């Protein structure tokens, strides 16, 4: 399969803690994206990182990309209950669309 694989599959943390999710992929990519999906809703685009970039920030989110290890990580700092959702990485493999991984289910406990 060409899809990325998120790790862990599920994560529970307390409000205020940081949450880190990882995505590993198999072949070279041009771009990698992270999406969030709240229960019963569509996916929301968080960050896109290109293969020549190593780190990007957006608010409380930080994404890193290590092309030598074929992996990416998503860090959410100072988590809130509203961050409870599934998080997906999506990779393009040089094609014309993105392939999604199975996701990490994050639960932020108050």
């Amino acid at each position: 399969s060409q899809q990325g694989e998120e790790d862990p599959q599920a994560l529970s943390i307390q409000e205020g803690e940081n949450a880190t999710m990882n995505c590993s992929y198999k072949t070279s990519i041009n771009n990698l994206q992270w999406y969030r999906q709240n229960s019963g809703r569509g996916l929301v685009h968080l960050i896109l990182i290109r293969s020549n970039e190593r780190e990007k920030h957006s608010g409380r989110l930080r994404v890193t990309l290590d092309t030598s290890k074929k992996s990416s990580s998503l860090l959410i700092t100072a988590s809130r209950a509203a961050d409870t959702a599934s998080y997906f990485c999506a990779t393009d493999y040089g094609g014309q669309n993105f392939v999604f991984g199975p996701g990490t289910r994050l639960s932020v406990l108050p």
Partner: protein
Amino acid sequence: EAGVAQSPRYKIIEKRQSVAFWCNPISGHATLYWYQQILGQGPKLLIQFQNNGVVDDSQLPKDRFSAERLKGVDSTLKIQPAKLEDSAVYLCASSLDWAAYGYTFGSGTRLTVV
């Protein structure tokens, strides 16, 4: 700007019946996607349109699924006949420049086949 609109929001049908989903992408977005998301899994691409032409339909089960995008705007996805394993959320997404900005998703249609 208005988001990606999908309807219906929910649909319950019996196996072997037919069903259709509708999607209205963001104005000006040339690329439109239909994804199938089975509970607990990531979305899987069914078909990708560029304007009204098909770019990728390699994972569309063409014996029962069909999709069209008339005039390069709205799109419909049809399943005929439905099977139990088609129970999933069907997500529509559109993009202005997928490699630069990613996708904008609709809220999806949750299909239950009984």
